[in-house]
C-alpha cells in the first residue's frame, strides 16, 4: 500500500510538472504572438509602443520622451501604438521596425543612430561626450527616481489625475510596483525631505554643467540632449507643484530655458501631441 501511495505521488508530481511546463510554453507562445501581431507600420517607419500621452506633456515617461525627441532630431518617421506598452523584456518603451523588435530606449537610440547614419554626436570631442553621457546616466539611473516617488509612492492615493488619464494608468498598479523597486534601489530608505534634497542637488549640478550654453555641449544638441530633455521636461511639465518644478522656475531657470529651447526645436506640434 505504501508502494502504491508513493507511485501515485510520483505520478501526481510528474503531472503537475507537466501541466506547469506546458502552461508556461503556451503562455510564452501567446506572448510572442502578441508581440508579433502588435501594430506594425509601413517600411522604414518606426512603431513606438508606449503608454499614452498626457494632458501636460507629450509623454509622462522620460524614456519615451527621450526616444520620440531623438526620432524627431534624427528625422526618422514614427507612429505610436498604445495597445501593448510593455515589451518582451517587460519594460517600456519598445519598438518594431520592419518586423524586428527592439527594446530599451538607449539600445534603440544607438541602433537607429547607426542604422540611419545619423550621428548627432558628430563634431564633439570625446571628453565632452563623456561628460554628456555621465549626465545622462546620472539622470536616468538616480534622479529618475524622484518621479515615481512623487507620483506613485508618496501620495496616497497615487497621483494619476493631475497628469494622466486616470483609468488608463490605474490598471498598471504603478504605486506598489514602484514602491518595491524604490526599496530595492535604496533611495526609499531615506526620509522624504532627504530624498528631495538629494534630487535638488542633482538638478543644481546639471544646471552648473549646462551653465549658459544653449545645449549640454554648446550651440547644437548632441544625442544625450534627447535623454536629458526627456528627464528634465518631466520636472517642468509633469511633476505639478513639486519642489523640482519650483526649482526649474527659480534657481534652475537655465534648465527651464533649455527645455523650452528643445521644445521649440523638436516639438513645434507640442500642443497637438498632448492628450485632449
Amino acid at each position, binding site marked *: 500500500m505504501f508502494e502504491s501511495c508513493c507511485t501515485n505521488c510520483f505520478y501526481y508530481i510528474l503531472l503537475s510538472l507537466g501541466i506547469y511546463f506546458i502552461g508556461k510554453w503556451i503562455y510564452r507562445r501567446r506572448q510572442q504572438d502578441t508581440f508579433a501581431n502588435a501594430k506594425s507600420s509601413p517600411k522604414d517607419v518606426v512603431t513606438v509602443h508606449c503608454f499614452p500621452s498626457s494632458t501636460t506633456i507629450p509623454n509622462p515617461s522620460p524614456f519615451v520622451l527621450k526616444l520620440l525627441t531623438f526620432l524627431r532630431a534624427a528625422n526618422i518617421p514614427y507612429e505610436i501604438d498604445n495597445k501593448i506598452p510593455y515589451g518582451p*523584456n*517587460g*519594460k517600456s518603451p519598445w519598438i518594431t521596425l520592419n518586423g524586428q523588435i527592439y*527594446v*530599451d530606449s*538607449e*539600445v534603440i537610440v544607438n541602433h537607429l543612430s547607426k542604422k540611419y547614419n545619423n550621428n548627432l554626436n558628430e563634431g564633439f570631442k*570625446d*571628453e565632452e561626450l*563623456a*561628460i554628456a*553621457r*555621465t*549626465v545622462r*546616466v*546620472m539622470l536616468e*539611473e*538616480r534622479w529618475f527616481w524622484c518621479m515615481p516617488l512623487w507620483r506613485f509612492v508618496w501620495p496616497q492615493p497615487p497621483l494619476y489625475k493631475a497628469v494622466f488619464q486616470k483609468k488608463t494608468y490605474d490598471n498598471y498598479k504603478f504605486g506598489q510596483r514602484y514602491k*518595491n*523597486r524604490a526599496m*530595492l*534601489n535604496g533611495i526609499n*530608505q*531615506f526620509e522624504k525631505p532627504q530624498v528631495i534634497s538629494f534630487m535638488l*542637488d*542633482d538638478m*543644481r*549640478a*546639471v544646471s*552648473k*554643467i549646462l*551653465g549658459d550654453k544653449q545645449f549640454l555641449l554648446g550651440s547644437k544638441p548632441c544625442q544625450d540632449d534627447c535623454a536629458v530633455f526627456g528627464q528634465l521636461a518631466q520636472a517642468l511639465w509633469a511633476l505639478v507643484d513639486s519642489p523640482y518644478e519650483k526649482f526649474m522656475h527659480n534657481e534652475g531657470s537655465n534648465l527651464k530655458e533649455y527645455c523650452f529651447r528643445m521644445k521649440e526645436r523638436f516639438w513645434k506640434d507640442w500642443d497637438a501631441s498632448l492628450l485632449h
Partner: protein
Amino acid sequence: MHNSANSVKVTPKDIVTLHCLGRGKTVPSPSPFVLKLETFLRMAEIDYQIDTKKPFNPKSGKTPWITLNGADLTDTQIIIEHLSKNFEKDLWGEATSEERAIARMTRLTLENHFYWGMVHWRWVKSINTIGNLMPIPVIKLTVAKLVMPRKMKHALNVQGLGRYSYEKMVEFLKEDLRNLSTILGQKDFWLGIAPMEIDCTIFGFLAQVLWGMPGSPYEKLLKDELFNLEEYCNRMREKYYSDFSEILYQPAAKQ
C-alpha cells in the same frame, strides 16, 4: 591611528568608529562604499577605528555606518559631508563649481550604475569564487551560493541592467569605465594634481575592479586598455594605503 581592533569598548572623543564587514583578502574592503569612506578618513586625516562586530546599523540595516561621539550615522555620502563639517575639512581645494558638478555626476554614475555590474559579477557570474574575495564560513558560503545569485538577479532585473543579455550589460558598464578614463585623461588625480573628495569614490570602485574582481571583463579592460585608470589606482594606493598588504585579511594561524 588606524586600528583594526575587532571589539570596541571605549571610544575616545572625536575618533570615528567605522562599522563594516571585515577586511578582504585581496582588497582592504570588498565594499566600494567602505573603501570610499576609509579613503576619505585617511585623506582628511581623521582618526578612526574599525568595528566588524556590528557591520549592519541596528536601525536601518545598512552598511557601512559610523559612530562619532555617541551619535550614529549611515550612508557614506551623508557621513562624508557631516565629517567634513564637523572636523572642518574641505577636500575640494580649488575645484570650480562646474568641476564639482561633474564630479557629482561621476560619483552617482558609479554608485547607481557601475555598482550593479560589480554585484552581478561577484554574486551571479563569478559566485563560485566569492570565497577568494573575503573570508566566509563554509556553511554561510554554501547558503550564499544557493541564495544570492537568484536574489541579485531579481535586484538587477528591478534596477534594469538585469534585463539585458550579459554581453550587452558588460558593454554598457565598460562604457562607464571608458568614460572615467576619458575624463581623467593624463591628470594625476580626478581634478588635477591634488587628490580631492571625489577621488575617494573613484578609487573605492576602481580598486574593486583592479584587485577585487579577478578574471572579470572590467579588470581586463583596465589592464589591457585603460592604463591611466590602472596607474591612477596605484597612485592612490601608494599615497593612502602604504599598509595595503598588512591590512588585508590574514587567516588566524598566520598571526
